[in-house]
């Protein structure tokens, strides 16, 4: 590992000032479960590492003014085992608990999972389905970016140097949702395909990961299903369309064709729940 300076600011302002003072070879340390491995593997060589976990208020899940806010330092276990989240958004809890091992989830954060912007980020699909928004603090103040616009490409987001994500929020809503993860091994595995299928009144929100450069919503399939009564034929049609809407690739874990098939199977089973 290369050597670096370490600093743990106590406030967002202190944090942003430090970033600008030290320059762009400064990396933000949150859960660390991804960052530390990348430093070990010499994929990155920071001169400065800034730990945001000591900033007050980032480790809370709040229900306020009709919005659910998940703070940047909220760990995956904290999110997944949160009573209210489990009750009202069980698919989000399941997604959080499907990542890594228990040990990893005590450190890894939901925000970290989002900011890494892996095409298969497991917490991305439920949050995309919930139309979540990312809260970003910078020198210029605070801004909010819808999650669907946050991901740019594989491991690339709209974040610029000097930005600190403080949390992700979504509107409190009454929904039915199903989270699915297809992987090689039941526990502690990256997703071959992951997905959240959500029903909110007569609208469907369908999100998939590991089938495109970013986690995506299948808007065309959603339009097809909107307002219609679910029938066996409609499910078939929707699955067909969904299979065409995704753009998976072949990689070590699976072929594009297998991923497409899993998209169809997952959507079929989810819709069948509400048949």
């Amino acid at each position: 590992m290369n050597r670096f300076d370490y600093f743990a600011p106590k406030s967002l302002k202190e944090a942003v000032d430090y970033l600008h003072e030290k320059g762009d070879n400064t990396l933000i340390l949150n859960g660390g479960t991804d960052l530390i491995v990348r430093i070990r593997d010499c994929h990155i060589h920071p001169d400065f590492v800034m730990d945001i976990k000591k900033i007050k208020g980032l480790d809370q899940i709040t229900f306020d003014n009709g919005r659910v806010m998940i703070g940047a330092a909220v760990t995956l276990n904290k999110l997944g085992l949160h009573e209210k989240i489990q009750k009202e958004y069980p698919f989000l809890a399941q997604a959080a608990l499907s990542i890594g091992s228990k040990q990893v989830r005590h450190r890894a954060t939901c925000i970290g999972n989002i900011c890494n912007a892996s095409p298969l980020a497991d917490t991305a699909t439920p949050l995309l389905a919930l139309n979540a928004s990312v809260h970003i603090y910078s020198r210029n103040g605070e801004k909010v970016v819808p999650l669907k616009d946050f991901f740019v490409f594989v491991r690339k987001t709209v974040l610029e140097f000097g930005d600190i994500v403080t949390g992700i929020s979504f509107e409190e809503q009454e929904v039915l949702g199903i989270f699915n993860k297809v992987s090689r091994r039941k526990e502690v595995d990256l997703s071959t395909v992951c997905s959240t299928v959500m029903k909110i009144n007569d609208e469907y929100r369908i999100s998939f990961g590991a089938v495109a450069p970013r986690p995506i919503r299948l808007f065309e399939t959603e339009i097809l299903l909107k307002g219609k009564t679910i029938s066996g034929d409609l499910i078939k049609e929707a699955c067909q369309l969904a299979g065409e809407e995704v753009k998976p690739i072949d990689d070590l874990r699976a072929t594009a064709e297998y991923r497409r098939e899993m998209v169809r199977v997952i959507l079929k089973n989810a819709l069948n729940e509400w048949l």
Partner: protein
Amino acid sequence: MKFVGKSVKRVDGIKKVTGSLKYVDDMKLSRMLYASVKRSPHPHAKILSINVEKALALKGVKDIITGEHYKKRGGLYLEDKNFLAVGKARYRGEAIAAIVATSQEVADKARKLIDVEYEVLPAVTNAVKAMEPGSPLVHPDLGEYYWVPVFMPKPGTNISNHYTLRKGNAPEAFEQADYVVENKFYVPHVQHVPIEPHTAIAQMDVDGVCTVWASCQSPYAVRQALSEAFDIPLNKLRVLSPAVGGGFGSKAGTTLEGIIIPLAMRNPGRPIKLTYTREDEFENAYVRQGLHATIKTGVNKDGKVIAVQNEFIWDGGAYNEYGVNIAKAAGYASAGPYDIDNVWTDSYCVYTNHPVGGPYRGFGMCEIHFGIEQNLDMIAKQLGITPVEIRRINGMKPGGTTGTGEVVPVAGLQECLEQVSFDIKLNEKTEVKEEHLARGKGIACGWKAPSMPNNAASSAIIKLNEDGSAHLLVSAQDIGQGSDTVMTQIAAEVLSISPEKITIKTGDTDHTPYEWQTVASRITYSAGRAVYEAAKDAMDQLLELSQIKLGVYKRDLELRDGYVVSKIYPDKKVAIADLALGLNFEDGSAVHGPIIGRGSFIPPNIRNADKKTGLGDHPVAFWTYGVQGVEVEVNTETGKVRVVKVASCFDVGKVMNPQLLEGQIEGAIVQGMGTALFEELMLKDGKVLNPSFVDYKIPTSDDMPEMIIKFVENPEETGPFGARGVAEPAMVPSAPAIANAIYDAVGIRLNTMPLTAEKVLNAIKAKKQND
């Protein structure tokens, strides 16, 4: 019996559960230096130049060596290997140079500063193609290498060993057969994945004595290899193996020890440490060779298999010094545990520019049984008989004949078969409610013999202490299997003292006596016999002295609970504590001196087979037979296979320690399941694409099936208390049983491992289309 056959608790348990056992990477020696290795990025390349100037200039770097410093080749069965590449790199990851520095950080930095110029050569990445004329040669100088005469390399080719077995006349027999089934199978490379990566520390003292601490299965084999490679006399080279965090074959022979010896020799007084990363484990340690197999089986309507013809092409990787014996072992076991009159096999070990193939639990048996057991099920289906029936007819029975023409007086296969069929309820189908889930059951048989030189030897020393306790010295290495405990039990049983009174010391070539290697499932059997003999020797001395002391004839004396006791007059006894240092007389004089029990063992009468035909009447020490039955659940939408239940039964001769034995089998079943469902070293153009746990998956606790473990005890005449080895046989039937169960569930056959969800799903779909 008091101790043998009982679940005596692990003697090394406390140290392990408290984290106080020091494994080699835990050791911190004074003035220790750290090594780093520069490796070839090319699978096949000439080394044109190595520039170490910049690296040497880095503060903290003490020394750098290359293959040019020590060019002597070595190897266990075929001397084709250098510790650092000489002239060319033969696999991606081969060690080119080694740096030693004051910290790991500096050593790793220096490694990046070494410039190596290569001339890339065409790489050989398919073992079948490697055998074709005109293929680039991995070892053009094969003809100049020394090899143990039982092996048959073909210089001028990539074939490092061609083993032939010609029993009867298979081609003729096929003409007579009612049905013939021929299939090709492919088993990819896998890695052992011991949780502890390889580590070694070497220190050369100014007086020329070299000490090596290594996580190794066989300190004496390491000593031998290093002594030869670096011309260090055996009495000046000490190898210790203080603890091993799992081996499974990967820590047999030598891996990284030779890299640090020259650094130690050039920096006397400084211990040099080298620890592998997990990535190193996947790329730069032994791997299990890949296998391309063609198996042809001929059977008559009555169910009798009358002919088998096999071609095994082993992807041995860049160095086959160990792998040549895997090709041989697979060859002589190629009939499987079946009594077949005509068996023709050609088993080739082939050089490729792939990671180095070496010993892996099963030593070829797991790979070949994947094909043998599926072929047999396919044959049974064609005949319209059950998988159990075809194995009842052809499975080895006592007095049967093996593929090499050996008549085996003992064979517990049939009993195991009946037990497993019963335990897995083979004839009952489990109903499942869900439409997309299908259940199936399958069985497979397996067998294995220890694959070792005919003269592989064990020895043991027992020293009695003057308080009635004892020290047991062996070089059998406890790599997790529990040998420390079982050896202690054997000594305790013979000496009739509690295991707690015996302290076992292992793994120190200066102090513990010779053990060939801890491999081949041979330790309970061979080291166990040596311990038995040593205890008997100590007992003998005790009885001799007691004759004098008690005035009772030797044949009427026995050991009981720390005493030598007259069998007829139990009051006449003497504590062994009182005899430990000799026998004292009333006049003050004494005789004999300390009681030291000495045992040496070589399995008797293991004779070379005929080189041309492979036939031999006693080519191995013993065969271990066993059967596993598996129930799987297949998700027909995703193709995922879940192993629900496994029933296992092995003929172990004697259950030495029920709890430890169960543990070994349970571990073997799960390891077998891993290779069946998840594990594959993905190689492309000689590169390992998945050298980490992110994409090389082994089973977790959540994958564990229900396991029913049973044993049969038909004693092995030459084993201690009748025991034979089972460490490797335990894993042999696992993968084929799963494959056969999948067939029962969804009617598809998969001829390549692993049986991934995608492969299963594709096969299900293809079957649907064909139906």
